[in-house]
């Protein structure tokens, strides 16, 4: 039997509202992680944040490219407290999508690169790349919305491990 290289690890499906979702105890048996989500938010105008290992220190760096007012814009955040992903969250759902990838997440000798893709027809597609300036293996991932806003019922989050 062929070795399964794209392995489902865990799922979260919301039955109510919550400000954050966390995948913890992530298996260290894979090379990369892929988190796919169909998020629905209860309000807009606020970005989604991503933290790993419960770490909120200034070690997150993100560069985003997104459509803005008929043009294409880009912004970068350095030494931030989280990966700062997206904006106008209410436009993410229904019909919004998110894909978040961590490469070499289980390595202990390098910073952790991240690629992110989000989109909705309201906001449009946005891509981002970043890295967590920490050599610790990633054992948990938390997605949250600030400003008192929430993910709402029906939001789905699926985590996959990709084997080398």
């Amino acid at each position: 039997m062929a070795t399964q290289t794209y392995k489902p690890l865990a799922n979260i499906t919301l039955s109510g509202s919550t400000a954050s979702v966390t995948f913890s105890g992530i298996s260290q048996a894979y090379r990369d992680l892929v988190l796919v989500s169909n998020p629905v938010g209860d309000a807009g105008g606020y970005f989604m944040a991503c933290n790993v290992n419960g770490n909120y220190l200034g070690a997150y760096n993100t560069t985003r490219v997104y459509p803005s007012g008929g043009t294409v814009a880009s912004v970068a955040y350095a030494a931030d407290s989280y990966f700062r992903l997206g904006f106008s969250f209410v436009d993410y759902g229904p019909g919004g999508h998110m894909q978040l990838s961590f490469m070499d997440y289980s390595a202990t000798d390098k910073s952790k690169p991240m690629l992110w893709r989000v989109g909705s027809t309201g906001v449009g597609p946005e891509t981002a790349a970043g890295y967590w300036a920490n050599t610790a293996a990633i054992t948990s991932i938390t997605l949250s919305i600030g400003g008192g806003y929430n993910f709402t019922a029906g939001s789905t989050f699926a985590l996959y491990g990709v084997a080398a």
Partner: protein
Amino acid sequence: MTMKLVSTVTVGVGGASQINFGSIPQDATDLVVRVSGRGTTTASTATLTFNGVTTTTYSSKWVLGTGSGTSTSSEAAVAAITCQKLVNPSSYTASTFSSGNILILNYAGSTVKSVAIEAVGENNATANGLAVQAGTWSGTAAITGLALTAAWAEGSTISLYTITKGTGGATAA
């Protein structure tokens, strides 16, 4: 198996005006369409529809890069999603094909369908294109079929996969 090939279509001699996938299994979570495409015309887009629905229930927004500039545009309440840069124009270097990926989340569910598209052309010249696109189908029916319409040239290959999430995990309140 998490990612499973459902079907592959390779366009033969004479080309094809539409690639159809029907009777899509309903036992998975997401759909992935991988495209290696070339056209018989100078058009670089293909239209995407679900379940044979061609009513004005599709919308999308995209960002383009051409090597000399960027742009963004959108379509709302249209009869199909216009997938940007999914087809290599006939004017591009001979025997080159675009590379594209279409992800459709929760395709078997009863909610609005979210579509993520990325595609890039291939051309031995400065003229080229890359697109990142977000689309929506407002239909709430499960997706049982999809069609990609373009002047597909011989050698174009389109493959459909399903991705199945795990059965474990949490339902969080």
